């Protein structure tokens, strides 16, 4: 009987292995500071990541769910309030109607959402050969493989093998599904000039922006792990206390 069940399990494992193999390249797995039970984001990396996002990604990708005030909040890039205000003011957003009833543009403030590069999806598609650059607010949680996948994708561009013909607006990426992706290679050597003097290699930029996007998708990650650690410690102590209490209570029952 047991043998039979073990056989079933082995068969299942075998099939799931075969099944997974036909999907795509396994993404790279760099060391992320936010992994592990007490993981945290690297502040400096998040700040650089924001720079990469605004200078490279934000031309096409919106981040509608974030606000400039988030850049100041604890557990995030933790820019100073003045820095964040200045960053917000670099973008123009729609203000309230003036006396003539016309919508005027005004510089964004902390409480504004990240300004989208597009008015609507149609405009975004028209500007990108029909492909819609997805919103990046929760992209890390919305993709199988999470941070690893995003990181790998950003540096996975290679020359297409000669036997592969690519249509216009399709690029070769070894980590994309079917090795094809509609996004052109975004990161090049020194694509941005980091204010803190870090050398902007594609790997570095991919690392920073992925860290930033991970924070954007899960801004409460640090608080979550911190509280979780306390909660679990409490529960373990309580379970020991209850274990001894339980034993004491049942001592006289046979």
């Amino acid at each position, binding site marked *: 009987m047991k043998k039979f069940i073990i056989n079933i399990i082995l068969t299942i494992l075998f099939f799931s292995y075969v099944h997974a193999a036909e999907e795509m390249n396994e993404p790279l797995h760099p060391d992320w500071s936010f992994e592990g039970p007490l993981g945290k984001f690297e502040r400096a990396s998040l700040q650089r990541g924001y720079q990469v996002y605004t200078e490279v990604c934000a031309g096409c990708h919106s981040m509608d769910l974030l606000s400039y005030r988030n850049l100041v909040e604890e557990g995030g890039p933790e820019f100073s309030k003045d820095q964040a205000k200045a960053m917000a003011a670099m973008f123009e957003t729609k203000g309230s109607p003036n006396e003539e009833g016309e919508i005027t543009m005004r510089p964004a403030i902390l409480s504004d959402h990240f300004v989208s590069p597009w008015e609507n999806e149609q405009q975004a598609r028209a500007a990108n050969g029909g492909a819609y650059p997805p919103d990046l607010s929760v992209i890390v949680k919305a993709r199988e493989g999470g941070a690893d996948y995003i990181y790998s994708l950003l540096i996975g561009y290679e020359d297409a093998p000669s036997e592969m013909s690519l249509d216009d607006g399709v690029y070769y990426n070894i980590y994309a599904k079917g090795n094809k992706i509609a996004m052109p290679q975004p990161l090049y050597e020194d694509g941005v000039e980091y204010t803190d003097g870090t050398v902007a290699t594609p790997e570095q930029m991919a690392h920073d922006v992925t860290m930033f996007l991970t924070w954007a998708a899960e801004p409460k990650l640090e608080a979550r792990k911190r509280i979780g650690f306390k909660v679990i410690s409490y529960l373990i102590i309580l379970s020991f206390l209850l274990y001894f*209490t339980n034993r004491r209570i049942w001592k006289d029952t046979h």
Partner: protein
Amino acid sequence: MSEDKTVTRRNFLYITTGSFFAAGSAAVVWPFVHQMNPDASVKALASTEVDLTPILPGQSITVLWRGKPVFIRRRTSEEIAEAKKVSLTELPDPEVDEDRVKNPEWLIMVGICTHLGCIPLGQKGEYNGWFCPCHGSHYDTSGRIRKGPAPKNLEIPQYVFLDDNTVKIG
């Protein structure tokens, strides 16, 4: 003797377990209470900057701050004089006009009647200030209560003049 010791030890265990459990249960209540407090997006709107350029003397605007109307009135010299000459003994809630403004020309106050929360109408009532239609409270040109059921003067919010033409409320 050893019987007593066993009982003491047992009670100690029970009390420790019980109080440890009670402390944890109490801590669990907090998130459920705190979730109803103003959230991060609401708090971010806690201050409002207003451009004062378009307001001429004798005009007022109403801006929304924390979901409440704030009256910003550019007072005329007559109004200022009227507000200053009132003696404190006449006031139910004595306060001099100088304490209610940072710049006498600009009167900035929360436009909510201190009686039961209605919005008073401007330049109405017996004192040429504000008049609350709900229960007939009269406020003067400094927003002080003069007559009617309201107990207090109209509230002055925190504000600073960032420059001559911009005020930040909150």
